[in-house]
């Protein structure tokens, strides 16, 4: 089993597209399920290290350890769910190409240990995100895509600058080797490199100050695409950012700065979500809020908190996918995503799914989101960061306020339409909610996985040369 198959199989499926252009949706499902199976079979052989081309210590290396395995499994799972969701809507070439390439990009981002290779996968995932934004081919979509391209160009410019400065000063690209030699660089140059890498990844990971564009992009694209953005794209950039942060042993003050950015992201996003009345914008801002909490938790570089943050990544991704897919059903029916559409239909199952996923997002007891948030809070309390605990609890009230406002929308309005939801979609959405419920009731196995992953992420996972 080679790790390169996670990149090569989707590429092969893409390049052979002219041979089966009528059945792209079926191929997409088969491909993603195959990748999910491959990811699951890797469980027993972790950690896996694979060198590309030559056996030199500094050649391109693909590494799969506990943390990246957890994310890879999550990504392939979400990709499979989203492709299953689209199965009913038939053959869509643009969606197939862009989403498959997005899968290639994010898996490459978390697997690769070579900085320039990471840049390539960064570009692959960005370009597929631009294409996904412009999927509807109307004024809104093009406006969103152009904006996205402008911020994306900034991000890749600064990432490239960071990579160039690293190669010019120490002459290596493998991130393990960079970690070894990083101390040799002049401190001011070190700061410059860290700043450019932070701008590059921070823009894409939607951190505070660099995330002014996010709501527009989510609003411009389809809701089902929003699930990919929120579950895959921002999470993979965040993972690479923190992987680099832990490897390069940044100073405590820089970690504190990251934590501050996380807290600011959280507060600003929740307030913006509260002020918004467009459901896609609300979910976008709520994604930003969760990213803020995750950044805050990861910035302590503490085993327990990092495990909790990984758990939050998993539960948030599943809950947000369910929410965005449910919203996509509504959007396809009403051709609008303003929050008033919640008062215009009657479909008990769909309403139940949205309510339950929303509750998990908020962290209400029987769901997995509760376990994640609780372990973040206890972790912060054990580090005596009571300020952060108070902040999260306080701002969560705002989160509760806007989510309940959204959900009470169901009970208002007259002359409701009955909305037909297909059985396959019911099964899919039900599966996601059951997943959340199941891990909420029996969190132990998932927590253990997350703890192992956090340990390998914090341990620096130096590749044996």
């Amino acid at each position, binding site marked *: 089993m080679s790790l*390169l198959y996670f990149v*090569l199989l989707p590429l092969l499926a893409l390049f052979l597209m002219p041979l089966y252009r009528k059945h792209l949706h079926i191929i997409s499902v088969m491909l993603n399920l195959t990748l999910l199976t491959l990811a699951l079979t890797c469980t027993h052989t972790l950690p896996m290290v694979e060198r590309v081309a030559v056996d030199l210590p500094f050649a391109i290396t693909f590494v799969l350890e506990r943390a990246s395995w957890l994310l890879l499994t999550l990504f392939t799972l979400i990709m499979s769910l989203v492709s299953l969701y689209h199965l009913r809507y038939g053959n869509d070439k643009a969606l197939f190409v862009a989403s498959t390439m997005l899968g290639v990009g994010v898996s490459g981002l978390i697997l690769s240990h070579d900085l320039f290779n990471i840049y390539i996968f960064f570009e692959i995932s960005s370009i597929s995100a631009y*294409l996904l934004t412009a999927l509807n081919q109307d004024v809104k979509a093009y406006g969103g895509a152009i904006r996205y391209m402008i911020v994306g160009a900034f991000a890749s410019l600064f990432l490239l600058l960071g990579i160039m400065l690293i190669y010019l000063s120490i002459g290596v690209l493998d991130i393990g080797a960079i970690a070894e030699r990083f101390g040799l660089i002049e401190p001011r140059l070190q700061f410059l490199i860290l*700043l450019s890498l932070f701008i590059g990844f921070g823009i894409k990971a939607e951190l505070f100050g660099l995330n002014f564009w996010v709501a527009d992009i989510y609003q411009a694209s389809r809701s089902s695409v929003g699930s990919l953005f929120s579950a895959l794209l921002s999470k993979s950039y965040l993972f690479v950012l923190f992987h680099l942060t832990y490897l390069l042993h940044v100073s405590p003050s820089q970690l504190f700065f990251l934590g501050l950015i996380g807290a600011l992201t959280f507060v600003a996003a929740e307030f913006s979500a509260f002020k918004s009345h467009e459901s896609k914008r609300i979910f976008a801002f709520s994604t930003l809020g969760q990213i803020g909490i995750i950044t805050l938790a990861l910035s302590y570089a503490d085993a327990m908190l990092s495990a909790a943050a990984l758990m939050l990544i998993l539960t948030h991704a599943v809950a947000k996918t369910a929410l965005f897919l449910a919203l996509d059903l509504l959007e396809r029916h009403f051709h609008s995503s303003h929050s008033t559409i919640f008062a215009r239909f009657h479909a008990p199952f769909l309403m139940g799914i949205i309510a339950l996923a929303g509750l998990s997002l908020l962290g209400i007891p029987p769901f997995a989101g509760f376990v994640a948030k609780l372990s973040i809070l206890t972790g912060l309390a054990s580090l005596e960061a009571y300020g952060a605990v108070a902040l999260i609890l306080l701002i969560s009230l705002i989160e509760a306020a806007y989510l309940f406002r959204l959900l009470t929308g169901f009970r208002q309005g007259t002359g409701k339409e009955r909305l037909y939801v297909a059985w396959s979609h019911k099964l899919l959405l039900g599966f996601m909610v059951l997943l959340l419920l199941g891990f909420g009731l029996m969190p132990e196995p998932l927590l253990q996985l997350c703890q192992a992953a956090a340990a390998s992420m914090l341990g620096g996972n130096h590749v044996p040369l």
Partner: protein
Amino acid sequence: MNLKRTLALSHLLTGLLVSVMIIALLGTLRLLTPPIDTIGETLLHINAQSTQVANAVTSVVTYFRGLDTLGEVSILFLSIFGVALHMQHSTRNLFGAHDTLLQIGAQVLFPLIVLFGVYIITHGHLSPGGGFQGGVIIASAFVLRFLAYGDHYEPSARLLTLSESLSGAGLVLLGVLGLLLGDRIFAQILSLGTMGTLLSGGVIELVYLFVGLKVAAEMTLLSQHFIKARDV
């Protein structure tokens, strides 16, 4: 939130960050000292025995960092796919010239340019050049025809996409074959030959051949879609 205010704010923020970066950069310029032993130099050392390719840049691009090239080729594929998707239903050629002299010139030059492109691709491991450059040169021959014939010249879009896709698939299959027969992507499954001859480098030449074919088809598609106006 007002969009204009958001835009102004974002400009202010990015401007602030950028100016901080620039000031910091100008201060740290003199600290940059070239490193002593880089990976590039290591690769240069082992290049002779592991690839038998006279152009070290070619061997780095296609062999040592073949995965980067695969990613780059797929980026190009993705981008051209987007261009073709959003520019389809284009009808009118922007350059509707019907200059007989230009047409004769295009007739004469077309095979010469294609030949030159093929030369650049097949000699990528001996001299400067390679798949990307040669591919674009071949595509430029088609661009010349577009300019000279206007709407009267139309290469089959199906053939172009087919050759693009199949050469891409060939590249990936070469990688998979390397994984199965050797133990790594783009492993040397062919004999290396002797350095400096046309048939040297083994897999490297095949990689550049596929890349060249793919880039030629892609760039032709790009220009075909770009130089046609679509009236909405």
